[in-house]
């Protein structure tokens, strides 16, 4: 008998706890670079294929190899895919953290561990399943070099047994993961997986309550990372020029984009690229390329994170003032400075909205799901060209780099909006144009592109003062008129940006406001508040800055409005305060979490209850 089940209380061991089905959290603790990603994905996909909602979150250190890493898979019949603080099933592969990992568990949790670690000595209120990995790996993996990697697949098999994940699904997930080209590697790993399963089946007696059961909640769904979804959005937006510089957690957005571009955007006839991607020397150059390309008519973009966005400050002011389209993704990580580069935050909201010296404001789109990453990536390009200004798309590490369940993306129904660009024919018709004149009342002037074959096409773009005709001007009136038009343009965007997602509950006195990935914790928290405290809440999730007028109404319609966000300084609240009246502001409360992990429902619920004085 090799499992030690609450060994000090044999009476309780006899009566099994009631089963907990499709509602638990698996955490795999390993070391960075030890190659457990495949095992974890296979495990997650196995559950997913059984129709159970899942999410996968990787908590990794800012190094390449050897430091502690935790991968968490949450299965939730309720469809909760936000972080859950409590770990139900720990797969303890990392000797360095094993003790601490075990110490943190709630009573009743499962520990699957490497037998020699002897973790079962540590506590008596957990379900322990020790696995002799080294013994098991030898027979299935003759090549010693590969054993370190293959070892990981053994725990997938063990977990499958413990949680009743069907091995056919594991098999399918595994072969899919390796792809047609790596069949041999897949076979090898499948062997390890089976060995784990068989060992568990043969050796263990199931004592814990956690298990999966088939559901039908994932049919047709996909699993995708936010960065991948945004990348796809860029490709379908028709991005043509990319300047970028690597930085975690943003690099994969570009790398996915490059992958898609290579597959789908080479000219079918000539095989040549309908795009240009340049790895710039730094973020200043990256955004400089974006502006140059946007100016010359490309759909251009870059992607970065905090430090890179800071470096773009001066250029973004140029983009604002010269009115050049461009899309900038900020996949937010924890600042300030280098901060925690592999942790998540919503910490750049305010500095990005107000990036650069002088008077200026920048629009931001803030997706909270892969679907929105895809859609907003496309929307961002349209908006940038429609409003002739840099548009930010604010993801965060949680959304960008973690694995999310999503509905398949919908093919865009509207054609691309290239904004107000005059052709030579237009110029013939109009007999000229004034670049910065508000002809249509939306604050947006008409522009021409360099290369337009017309003697009246040219104008001069400058970051210094200019009049409607784009001529150099230091005149007070010209400056003020231009700045007022820019304000008007910004205000005009409110109506054109993605509208908030609003869920008004009858009689709710409390409103919640949030953006981005806070959504998952909030959805779950609202259920907790209702179920546990009888508190009904309305919820408005903003998708863009400047804020929609719906937010104003939402505030008016509720007594207290909690602004929930993932930063220390209450940046979303701050941006709201800039826009709102004292009366409106009086209703606002703040819930902030800034520990670097994805926001979880309990944190929201607890803080709200505390503030409600309950």
């Amino acid at each position: 008998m090799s499992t030690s089940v609450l060994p000090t209380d044999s009476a309780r061991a006899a009566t099994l706890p009631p089963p907990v089905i499709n509602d638990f959290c698996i955490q795999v603790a390993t070391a960075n670079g030890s190659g457990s990603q495949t095992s974890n994905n296979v495990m997650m996909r196995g559950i997913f294929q059984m129709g159970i909602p899942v999410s996968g979150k990787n908590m990794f250190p800012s190094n390449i190899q050897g430091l502690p890493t935790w991968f968490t898979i949450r299965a939730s019949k309720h469809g909760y895919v936000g972080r859950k603080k409590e770990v139900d099933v720990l797969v303890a592969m990392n000797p360095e953290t094993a003790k601490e990992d075990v110490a943190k568990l709630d009573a009743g949790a499962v520990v699957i561990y490497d037998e020699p670690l002897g973790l079962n000595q540590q506590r008596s209120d957990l379900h322990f399943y020790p696995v002799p990995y080294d013994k098991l790996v030898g027979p299935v993996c003759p090549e010693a070099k590969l054993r370190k990697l293959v070892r990981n697949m053994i725990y997938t098999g063990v977990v499958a047994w413990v949680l009743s994940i069907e091995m056919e699904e594991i098999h399918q997930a595994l072969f899919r993961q390796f792809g047609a080209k790596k069949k041999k590697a897949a076979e090898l790993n499948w062997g390890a997986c089976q060995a784990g399963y068989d060992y568990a089946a043969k050796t263990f007696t199931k004592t814990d309550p956690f298990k999966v059961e088939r559901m039908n909640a994932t049919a047709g769904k996909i699993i995708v990372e936010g960065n991948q979804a945004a990348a796809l959005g860029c490709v379908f937006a028709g991005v043509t020029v990319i300047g970028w510089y690597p930085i975690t957690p943003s690099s994969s957005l570009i790398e996915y984009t490059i992958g898609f571009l290579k597959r789908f955007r080479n000219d079918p006839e000539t095989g040549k690229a309908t795009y240009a991607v340049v790895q710039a020397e730094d973020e200043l150059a990256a955004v400089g390329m974006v502006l140059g390309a946007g100016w010359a008519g490309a759909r251009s973009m870059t992607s970065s994170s905090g430090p890179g966005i800071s470096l773009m400050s001066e250029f973004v002011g140029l983009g604002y003032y010269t009115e050049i389209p461009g899309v900038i993704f900020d996949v937010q990580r924890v600042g300030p400075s280098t901060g925690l580069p592999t942790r998540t935050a919503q910490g750049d909201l305010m500095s990005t909205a107000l990036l650069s010296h002088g008077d200026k404001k920048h629009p931001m789109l803030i997706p909270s799901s892969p679907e929105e990453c895809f859609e907003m990536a496309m929307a961002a390009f349209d908006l940038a060209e429609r409003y002739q200004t840099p548009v930010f798309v604010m993801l965060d590490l949680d959304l960008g780099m973690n694995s999310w369940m999503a509905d398949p993306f919908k093919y865009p129904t509207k054609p691309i909006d290239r904004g107000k660009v005059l052709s030579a024919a237009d110029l013939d018709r109009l007999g000229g144009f004034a670049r910065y004149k508000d002809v249509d009342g939306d604050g947006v002037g008409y522009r021409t592109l360099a290369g337009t074959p017309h003697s009246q096409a040219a104008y001069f773009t400058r970051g210094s003062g200019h009049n409607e005709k784009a001529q150099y001007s230091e005149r007070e009136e010209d400056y003020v008129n231009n700045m007022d038009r820019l304000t008007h343009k910004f205000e005009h965007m409110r109506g054109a940006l993605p509208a908030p997602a609003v869920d008004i509950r009858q009689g709710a006195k409390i409103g919640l406001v949030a953006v981005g990935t806070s959504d998952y914790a909030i959805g779950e928290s609202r259920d907790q508040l209702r179920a546990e405290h009888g508190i009904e809440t309305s919820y408005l999730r903003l998708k863009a800055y400047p804020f929609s007028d719906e937010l104003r109404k939402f505030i008016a319609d509720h007594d207290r409005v909690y602004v929930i966000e993932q930063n220390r300084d209450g940046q979303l609240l701050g941006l709201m305060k800039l826009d709102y009246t004292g009366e409106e502001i009086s209703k606002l409360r703040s819930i902030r979490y800034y520990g670097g992990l994805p926001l979880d429902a309990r944190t929201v619920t607890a803080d709200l209850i505390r503030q409600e004085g309950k």
Partner: protein
Amino acid sequence: MSTTVTPAPKKVNRIGLEVIQYKGSKTTLCAGCGHNSVSERIVECFYDLGIQPWSVAKFSGIGCSSKSPAYFLGLSHGFNSVHGRMPSVATGAMLANRTLLGLGVTGDGDTASIGLGQFMHLQRRNLPFIYIIENNGVYGLTKGQFSATADIGSKQKTGGVNEAPPFDLCALALQWGATFVARSFSGDKKQLQAILKAAISHKGLAVIDVISPCVTFNDHEGSTKSYTYVRDHEEAMHELDFVPSYEDIAVEIDEGTTREVTMHDGSKLLIKKLAADRYPGTKIEALTTLQEAETAGVVLTGVFYVEPEKDTLMDQLNMVDEPLGTLPESRVRPGQAVLDQVMEELR
């Protein structure tokens, strides 16, 4: 080639445009500033070669020099960007529309101080682009501080002496990928014209370092970028002549004294040696020549290096021939089937 008959026929170039159509707005630089001469040469060359103004895009950073694109080619789009970071802006624009003829004008402060990183990385990419530095050894617009091209021992108007070695922008360009590298002097009309025309015909990155004195802040005794100093110390390596491709003239050259470089577009640069065998040679020869000139205290001008056919950034990126910026939706938005395929893969 102009077919319209005008009452008083004006002088036009081969595409029927008058020289005024190559001019810009009135200069706001100081009277006598070297930069104004460079602007004039640009006007002349583009007129002479009959280049369609709207096929050109002008770029600059910030500085007196960087103001000058407003003072030539008024019918071309222009972009006066931020200090030192014009190369990236130009790179983006040229990628968006590779059919443009890209022309950048910047200063030594713009290029060698704040912009050195971008300048160097531009070299590596061999962007098809003309990059002119109006080099006066100082920051003109901020009133005369030393730039990083100021020579050791050179004196500031207010008395300061420069102690740090200057960056030789030609040497940097040479070593790191520019395929056309030349130095000239804003006071040397003929040479600058020939160099500019050859640069216009060049396929890749052409870097032209033009010593262009700042009459207000760096034209005094003790300066090594004053008109007097440069006139006294200039040594032209060779005599240059440019024969555009469309001029179907059989040029007879004396092989002993003159070499012919055929540019990518078929134009010819004729290089007649003056003293020692100073034709553009290999990179290392050019570097050595530059080093020797520096040691000798000579301001060596001329074309140091030409490599007419090297792959440009666009070649490296294997881009389609048309401007990316105006490709129709059908060519930049994949179809429903592609999305379906990706969704299937993610299921």
